[in-house]
């Protein structure tokens, strides 16, 4: 990797930025300064000063502000004037008092993503509170009893797409875990100069309006010469026959998005400073509205130490996928004083965000070239899981299989590889338990539930009962936590898999669940009818939980898109095969045709949101209320489901 001097144009702009910050801004032709940032986002986190009475206060103003994004003037919804908003910092054990003033002409709100707090402080209009009306100031106040990397964002309309997000960092009461010398916060996001309401309207009318990576006639000819005529034709016939598009990786793409790292595009990158040899903690947050990112620092391995703000056993990797709303903390050690790129490629490869780790702002690293857009596979339709697994392994030389062999899902016997392409469920797989027929959820007797912390079996999908809002169901679904995800793991690089994550400390209380709730993630891209069990939020009844009950939440993705599902108010323990070391998370990215289960202790009374964090999927109804209430006296709630 070689250093490149930035062009004089950019260097000059950087100089101007600095000058503006120190008060010489009147010389600028425009009042807008490129990428104005919260100082701690710009320079990294310094020591956190103590506060009186253990109460830390912030005043936030939500406003429509002209800002400079990706080289253009943009009207954004800002928090204290910047995109992203300020870094809110706390120490574990403090009390947060955050006054949010709404100067917009519409309602707003802030949800504290991943923070465990009382239901009326969670910031979801319609569930937690009424929202913050124009001109009103709402005071959030809650105790912070956790540490880690979190974030906050609007839960009103599509404001999140307009810049209404920021980072929330909680220092542990006592520093534990791997040591580091310096820390930077990295907020990844996506920005569009179109109105997000217009974006949604466009994709509802033409679902592939932003897909400029379709397969063309020329791709067909190329495939014919590479794979032969009949293979190319049968592949096209298979996809077209299902009315599915293998290039449908993201609804909203780089065709309209500018991808941002700390509010800056790659052309004018954010730069985080470091000293050679230092261990640098990067707190990486995906605050996008529609983009998963694949993050790497070319030439430098990353050690993942936290996921969803919670400490995990350190795992070294070269690349990881950060789904919408996820947070990953990684430690990197940069051996010399060259510049290094933090490169975050959009999952569909339609663009990338990038920033620099460098000794000074003018010194940048070369950026890797974008990879070709991936194609969905048979595995994303719930076919040919067995062959997919085999493919992954062979394509990943150098992967340490041994250390995690226990996490590799055992494929049910009977998947007939020769039958690939034919919608015949594997005969010898686990008996189909029709746990979702016609219901939003239903209970299974506790006695039939498998041990906590284990992986779900491959399960053939029953008949499609999800209605006209669902395009198709996979042939069968299984755990895909050991797969890197579409477009990853094919270039010899180590890629983090969810199956590699173990909680840093085993959970002392790791009760078995008493019932299982199975929810199917559904949708029809052609109609843009995303939902849960085929039912959008406005027609759905809440998921009822009894206070302190322990449930297994099983999600089955019947669609061909990734859905990062977020539960408010309560942790989810991801059952990835590590028993009581299951990692604790607030958001799980469910891959196409994946079956994933999580354990939830309903330890928070109230009305909570549970939804897909693709903003546009949530907006059209991929959302549920989860209502936790005390059991009525003399009634055991759902426990007596036998």
């Amino acid at each position, binding site marked *: 990797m070689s250093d490149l001097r930035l062009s004089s144009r950019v260097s000059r702009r950087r100089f101007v930025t600095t000058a503006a910050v120190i008060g010489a801004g009147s010389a600028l032709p425009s009042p807008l300064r490129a990428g104005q940032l919260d100082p701690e986002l710009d320079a990294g986190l310094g020591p956190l000063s103590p506060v009186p009475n253990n109460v830390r206060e912030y005043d936030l103003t939500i406003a429509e502000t002209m800002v400079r994004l990706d080289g253009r003037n943009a009207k954004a919804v800002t928090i204290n004037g910047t995109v992203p908003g300020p870094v809110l910092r706390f120490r574990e054990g403090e009390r947060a008092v955050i006054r949010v003033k709404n100067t917009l002409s*519409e*309602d707003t*709100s802030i949800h504290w993503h991943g923070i465990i707090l009382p239901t009326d402080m969670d910031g*979801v*209009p*319609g569930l937690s509170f*009424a*929202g913050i*009306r124009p001109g009103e100031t709402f005071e959030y106040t809650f105790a912070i009893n956790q540490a880690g990397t979190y974030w906050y964002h609007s*839960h*009103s*309309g599509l*404001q999140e797409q307009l810049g209404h997000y920021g980072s929330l960092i909680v220092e542990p009461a006592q520093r534990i875990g791997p040591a580091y010398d310096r820390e930077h916060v990295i907020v990844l996001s996506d920005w569009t100069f179109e109105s997000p309401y217009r974006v949604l*309207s*466009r994709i*509802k*009318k*033409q679902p592939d*309006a932003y897909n*400029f*990576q*379709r*397969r*063309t*006639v*020329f791709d067909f000819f190329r495939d014919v010469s590479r794979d032969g005529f009949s293979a190319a034709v049968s592949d096209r*016939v298979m996809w*077209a*026959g*299902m*009315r599915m598009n293998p290039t449908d990786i993201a609804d909203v793409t780089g065709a309209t998005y500018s991808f941002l790292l700390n509010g800056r595009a790659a052309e004018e990158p954010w730069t985080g400073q470091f000293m050679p040899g230092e261990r640098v903690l990067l707190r990486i947050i995906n605050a996008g509205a529609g983009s998963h990112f694949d993050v790497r620092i070319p030439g430098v391995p990353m050690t993942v130490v936290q996921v969803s703000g919670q400490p995990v056993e350190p795992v070294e990797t070269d690349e990881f996928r950060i789904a919408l709303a996820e947070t990953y903390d990684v430690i990197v050690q940069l051996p010399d004083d060259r510049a290094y790129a933090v490169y975050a490629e959009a999952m569909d490869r339609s663009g990338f965000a990038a920033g620099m780790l460098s000794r000074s702002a003018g010194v940048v690293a070369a950026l890797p070239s974008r990879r070709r857009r991936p194609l969905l596979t048979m595995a994303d339709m719930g076919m040919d899981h067995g062959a997919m697994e085999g493919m992954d392994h062979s394509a990943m030389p150098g992967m340490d299989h041994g250390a995690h062999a226990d996490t590799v899902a055992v494929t049910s016997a009977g998947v007939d590889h020769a039958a690939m392409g034919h919608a015949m469920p594997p005969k010898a797989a686990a008996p189909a338990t029709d746990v979702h027929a016609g219901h939003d959820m239903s209970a299974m007797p506790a006695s039939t539930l498998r041990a906590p912390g284990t992986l779900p079996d491959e399960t053939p999908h029953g008949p499609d009962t999800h209605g*006209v*809002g*669902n*395009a*198709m169901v996979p042939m069968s679904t299984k755990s895909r936590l050991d797969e890197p995800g579409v477009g990853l793991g094919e270039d010899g690089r180590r890629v983090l898999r969810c199956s590699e994550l173990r909680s840093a400390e085993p959970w002392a209380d790791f009760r078995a669940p008493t019932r299982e709730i199975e929810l199917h993630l559904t949708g*029809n891209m*052609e*109609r*843009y*009818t995303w*939902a849960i069990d085929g039912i*959008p*939020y*406005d*027609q759905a009844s809440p998921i009822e939980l009894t206070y302190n009950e322990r449930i297994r939440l099983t999600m089955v993705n019947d669609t061909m898109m990734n859905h990062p599902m977020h539960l408010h108010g309560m942790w989810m323990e991801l059952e990835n095969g590590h028993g009581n070391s299951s990692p604790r998370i607030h958001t799980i990215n469910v891959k196409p045709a994946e079956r994933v289960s999580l354990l939830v202790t309903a330890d928070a009374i109230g009305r909570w949101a549970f939804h897909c964090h693709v903003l546009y999927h*949530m*907006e*059209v*109804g991929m*959302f549920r209320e989860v209502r936790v209430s005390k059991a009525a006296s003399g009634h055991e709630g759902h426990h007596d489901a036998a």
Partner: protein
Amino acid sequence: MMQLDRIARFLAAPVLIAAMMVASSGPLPAQVVDTLRHAGAHDMSWGRETFLISEVLEYAPSGAGRPVNYDLLAWSGGAVNRLWAKADGGIATLGGGMHGEYQLQYGRLVSPWWDAQIGVRVDQTSGSGTSATRFGAVAGLQGLAPGWFEVEPSMFVTTDGNVSLDLTVSYDLYLTQRLVMQPRLESAVSLRDEVEFGIGRGLSSTSFGVRTRIEIRREFAPYIGVVWDRRYGRTAEFARQSGAAAGEARLVAGLRLWR
């Protein structure tokens, strides 16, 4: 009087579609607006849209009468229930003839890929001093068949008891990310002669076009193409009797627009 009638026919389709759009996007009562705004802005439902597209809006300099032909479609409503309006026809710029079929339908999504539609249809034709109108009920399907074919079969029962069947099939072939070739076939079958409309019983006509558009924006795509029309059997005979050809091939240039 005749002139007024022609103007009215000319305006029938655009007025119908404009009325639909105004009806669907008109101002909501202030109370409703207030409720929506303060509900926290999320209604989190499949929502409601109004869509308007000119699948065909083209000029054929080599066609008989140098016609401007159109096939307009609009819908308004949610993902499941929609009001549909369709207008398909042509206006000659030489000789003053015109013909058009206008439909207003209720449609319901009956499977993930298919809308079932039912409504009313009015056909009009005029030229060389004669004109005719027929009314009736129409029912059909509209959707996406396996293979990504847009398919639209429909049945039209007129007030005087004739039945005709129409089928439109089209396919988008992506040459590049913005250059799209669209073969499109329209065919009509009538169970009876409709002499005033120049339609004979049996398979009356087919129209096969290949249009290639450039999507400058997804919503704005100029195109050029070739269209082959053919009339069959008694329909062809009626055409010959009135001095027209039984078929024609024409070059077309048009605009595919949607919003």
